């Protein structure tokens, strides 16, 4: 498991990771979510000791009393943590097998592991090909193979589905679920909630380097989503008079917000369908649709991170 305690990283006074604390537990897939630029990759590099934290720490194997240690102190780290941070961080002139052979040797692992993980990643046929000819999807598979080399109890993967075709995406999903089912702690980052909805058991959401949510995936919508009631009336003009114009302010005072979603439908949140029906009846509006709608996971995530999106369309997008 990974224990992250008050992890903070500043670059020239700017906080990229801000007092982040959470635990990545064994046996589950922990989805690490946030918009681009939220600090996910920096957090992962801090966990691997590739950068030094300004404050706080990340321990591998549990908290300090349980014998957890910072990654930089591990003597054979590939046996404890498998990581895929950057599928391009290798030399294209080597063959896939060559790349995995030096990695295996660096941690005293037998060289046959190279061929075993290549087979596991579906790259057995490409073992002797130079990496520079690999597609992004093949590089991701090679990165996963490298992460599995030491059969580690902890896996850290940064946006592993990037560049994968649908078959590759399904392969990653199944693999992550299997690895967690074997009792490993799996931390996988993504900027897409829809992807995590299908993979993760537990969600850690960050925005601007700060923790926004740390909760099981099931029930996430109930806690962070907002139920809405979709309403349509036989006479759209009457419904418009009921919800539109000055009525908006009156309703807002009661904590009810309304918005027109398309030509004649309205979405009402902050109140129950019974009260809406009563209100409509009171004003002689005949409704033919009252539907309670739940946010999708994606919408809950968007709302949660709306204030913390680093790069928006129109501003410099460098992620």
């Amino acid at each position, binding site marked *: 498991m990974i224990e992250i305690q008050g992890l903070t990283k500043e670059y020239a006074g700017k906080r990229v990771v801000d007092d982040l604390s959470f635990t990545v537990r064994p046996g589950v897939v922990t989805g690490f979510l946030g918009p681009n630029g939220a600090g996910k990759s920096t957090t992962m590099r801090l966990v*691997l000791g*590739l950068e030094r934290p300004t404050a706080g720490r990340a321990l591998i194997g549990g908290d300090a009393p349980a014998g957890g240690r910072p990654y930089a102190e591990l003597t054979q780290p590939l046996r404890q943590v498998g990581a895929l941070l950057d599928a391009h961080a290798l030399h294209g002139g080597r063959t896939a097998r060559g790349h995995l052979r030096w990695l295996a040797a*660096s941690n005293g692992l037998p060289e046959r592991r190279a061929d075993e993980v290549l087979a596991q990643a579906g790259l057995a046929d490409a073992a002797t090909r130079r990496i520079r000819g690999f597609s992004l999807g093949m590089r991701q598979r090679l990165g996963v193979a490298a992460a599995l080399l030491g059969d580690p109890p902890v896996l850290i993967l940064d946006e592993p589905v990037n560049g994968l075709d649908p078959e590759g995406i399904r392969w990653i999903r199944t693999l992550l679920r299997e690895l967690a089912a074997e009792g490993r702690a799996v931390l996988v980052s993504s900027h897409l909630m829809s992807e995590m909805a299908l993979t993760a058991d537990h969600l850690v959401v960050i925005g601007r380097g700060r923790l926004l949510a740390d909760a099981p995936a099931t029930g996430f919508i109930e806690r962070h989503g907002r139920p809405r009631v979709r309403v349509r009336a036989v006479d759209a003009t009457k419904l418009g008079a009921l919800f539109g114009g000055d009525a908006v302010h009156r309703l807002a005072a009661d904590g009810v917000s309304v918005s027109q979603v398309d030509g004649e439908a309205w979405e009402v949140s902050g109140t129950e369908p019974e009260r809406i029906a009563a209100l409509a009846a009171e004003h002689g509006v005949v409704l033919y649709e009252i539907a309670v709608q739940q946010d999708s996971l994606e919408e809950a995530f968007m709302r949660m991170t709306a204030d913390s999106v680093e790069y928006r369309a129109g501003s410099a997008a460098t992620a």
Partner: protein
Amino acid sequence: MNPTTDAGSVFRHALRAERIKFTTLPSLWIPPLLALLLTPGITTAVGAALGGTEPHLTDDPGAGVYYGLNFGQLPMVCFGILLIGLEFNTRMIGTSLSAVPSRGHLYGAKLTLAAAAALVVGAVGTAGAFAGYAATVPGEWAGPALVRSAAAGVLYPALLTVFCLGVTTLLGNLTAAMGLLTPTVFLLSPLLGGIPGAGRVVQFLPDRAGQYALHYADDPQIAYGHWTGLLITAAWTTAAACGGLRAMRRYEAAGH
């Protein structure tokens, strides 16, 4: 799983990994191979072409034997730079550091590999150069300075290679290291060496000083002895290696 995890085995594994990195990437093993061929090859070719006629080739056998090393040292400089420079430029250094988080062990393993490969190139190249020279140039090639000159021929490429590795680590960038080291060793130092005023300073550059140890004859222009020349190069190499270690310990593999 019962791994032996003492510091010695960490270094041994790191060195083995560096050896595999070296043998699995042509851009790493081609330069020393080239040096191995050029050093005796050019000496022999020039000896065969001019040995009988050009008198100054034979004036100082040290200069004649190591004529090929003037060219052979170029790939060795590149080798020292590429060994770590390629990792900086491909960001592979991040992968290397996650496999061997102990910066000192990773750097020490690279340094050891560089020195070992360059010593082999130095020993075999020097032996080949002496053999080629003896076979093609008439006259005495042995002399009282033979042992010192041969020892310098073995050590100089290793010192130069490790120097370049250290400077590249210090700079943390392949392109910057190429830009600084190659023109210095191949243009600045030989060209400025000929200018009387500049020569007094340039003779203390690592390549000039080390090459003086190769020669048999004394040069009145040089302010130090032959062995001292090799020591000057060794001092440069030690400084670069230590600077590199410091930079490596502080290095942060920032993202893209």
